[in-house]
């Protein structure tokens, strides 16, 4: 596979919710090792676009190409097996089970006892312990149920989860909304580190400075349409704000 061909190509994606047109003719490419910031006001359609790429929702029109092949995901499981990892805006944790169980949700390590798959709790525990430690996330006990953790700790679990599982393309929908200053700094550094491994990253954020810090390119959406695509080095915060709000100056 040629490194200059896009990892993901969106072609004329539209999405209607009844009469509401959440997305209209959205097309853009994401390349390997590239961080794309997706910006836009509330209701611009960012989360909807992420859900469509992640297989959680079908587009009304349009095509998605992943590594040059057209894909048609019917479930998040299919997107995941293709190599697309997603961190959703409304977190995807089961608060009624512990940190370890959440980390391995759907990918539990098992050992076979007489052919019966049995959860390998010790192994899973040590993997999670290591992953959180290397990310500098402090959680008192990995055996506490997630309902007893703070919003920041929960978001950290999700972020570390996708870092651990890797993949080819990562979609992050407002991943730092509940994080503190230091955790956000670490998170941004982590995104750069992952991108350096050749993974494509789409990060949705509201905060302009974060976008400038982490992204190579910005895609700005307004009312379901692409309002502009700019390289971070060729633009200014003022210009991006104008694209977001649609004000002509």
């Amino acid at each position, binding site marked *: 596979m040629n490194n200059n061909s896009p990892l993901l190509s969106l072609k004329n994606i539209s999405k209607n919710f009844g009469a509401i047109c959440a997305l209209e003719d959205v097309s853009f490419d994401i390349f390997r090792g590239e961080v794309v910031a997706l910006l836009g006001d509330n209701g611009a359609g960012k989360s909807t676009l992420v859900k469509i790429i992640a297989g959680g929702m079908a587009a009304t029109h349009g095509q998605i190409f992943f590594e040059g092949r057209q894909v048609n995901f019917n479930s998040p499981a299919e997107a995941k097996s293709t190599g697309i990892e997603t961190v959703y805006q409304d977190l*995807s944790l089961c608060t009624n089970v512990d940190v370890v169980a959440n980390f391995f949700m*759907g990918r539990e390590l098992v050992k076979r006892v007489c052919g019966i798959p049995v*959860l390998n709790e010790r192994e899973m525990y040590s993997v999670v312990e290591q992953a959180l430690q290397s990310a500098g996330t402090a959680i008192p006990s990995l055996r506490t149920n997630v309902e007893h953790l703070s919003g920041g700790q929960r978001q950290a679990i999700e972020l570390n989860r996708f870092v651990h599982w890797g993949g080819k393309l990562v979609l992050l929908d407002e991943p730092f909304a509940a994080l503190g200053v230091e955790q956000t700094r670490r998170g941004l550094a982590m995104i750069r580190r992952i991108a350096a491994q050749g993974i494509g990253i789409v990060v949705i954020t509201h905060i302009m400075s974060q976008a400038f810090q982490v992204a190579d390119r910005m895609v700005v959406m307004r009312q379901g349409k692409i309002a502009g695509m700019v390289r971070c080095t060729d633009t200014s915060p003022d210009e991006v704000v104008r694209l977001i709000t649609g004000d002509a100056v």
Partner: protein
Amino acid sequence: MLCIFSATVPRFFQIEIFANIVEHSTFVGVMAIGLAIIIIAGNMDLSVESVAALAAMITGILFASHGVGLGIAFTPEWLVLPVSLLIALTVGGVIGAFNGFLVVVMQMNAFIVTLASYIWVRGLVVAVSGGRSAQDLPPPLRFIGIETFLAIPLIAWIAITCFVVFSFVMSKTPFGRHVTMIGGNPVATYRAGINVGRITVTTFVIAGIVSGLAGWMLAIRTSGATANLGTGMLFQAFAAVVIGGVSLKGGVGRLPGVYAGVLLLSSIQTAINLMGLPAHYTQVILGLLVLAAMLLDALKISVRRRLA
């Protein structure tokens, strides 16, 4: 609780009485396993009692020799054992699969679907039996119903085995983990790539199968079946599940707790009998017990919130 009864109620502390409690809890206990798994997965199954009754009635009709029984016999005679068991489990499994299909594929509300099954399956029991009963199951089946091992009836051992097996499945296998997580957050499990639909259907099939087992044991214990067999057991199973610490919101609960709930219920019933209270009070006490369990649960949550 058992200790209190042992100390205060005369003649309570006797091995036969314990055996009696364990036996008494067999049918409700096995049903409660299925009900608990469904509720932990965030669903509802009101049909367990009727499914058990149907499995019992079909066992009775096919293999009992009097009443509406057809008295089908095998050579060798013991073959009736696996065949009747298999039929009872299949009956339960099919109805469970039907419930699961309507809930998952047709996206119907589980409460309504299983309420309908509660009604039509019981109706089927009355219809196929014509309201009459079947009596006298062949000796191999009666043997299971009467024999004991270590002072505990064989059917009670079956229930205990079920609890051990399903407790293991729920706490140690990926399937059990997924069931619990689906009860906690179905959207998250779906996004994580877990096949939520398949697992949900499986929980309904399991509930149907264990209800079929409960019905089979009911039939062999009473050596036949009547059209109203098992009436009221749904509510006892419910009480046991709630007292055992399963949250109706889903995602919370353990099967050992449910078994403790079942044992508690039947020891209370036994104690009431021994104390010579009129049996009518049993229901009042059971109802209050369910309320007490809910109250305890609410207290636990508010205490935890204050600590957090």
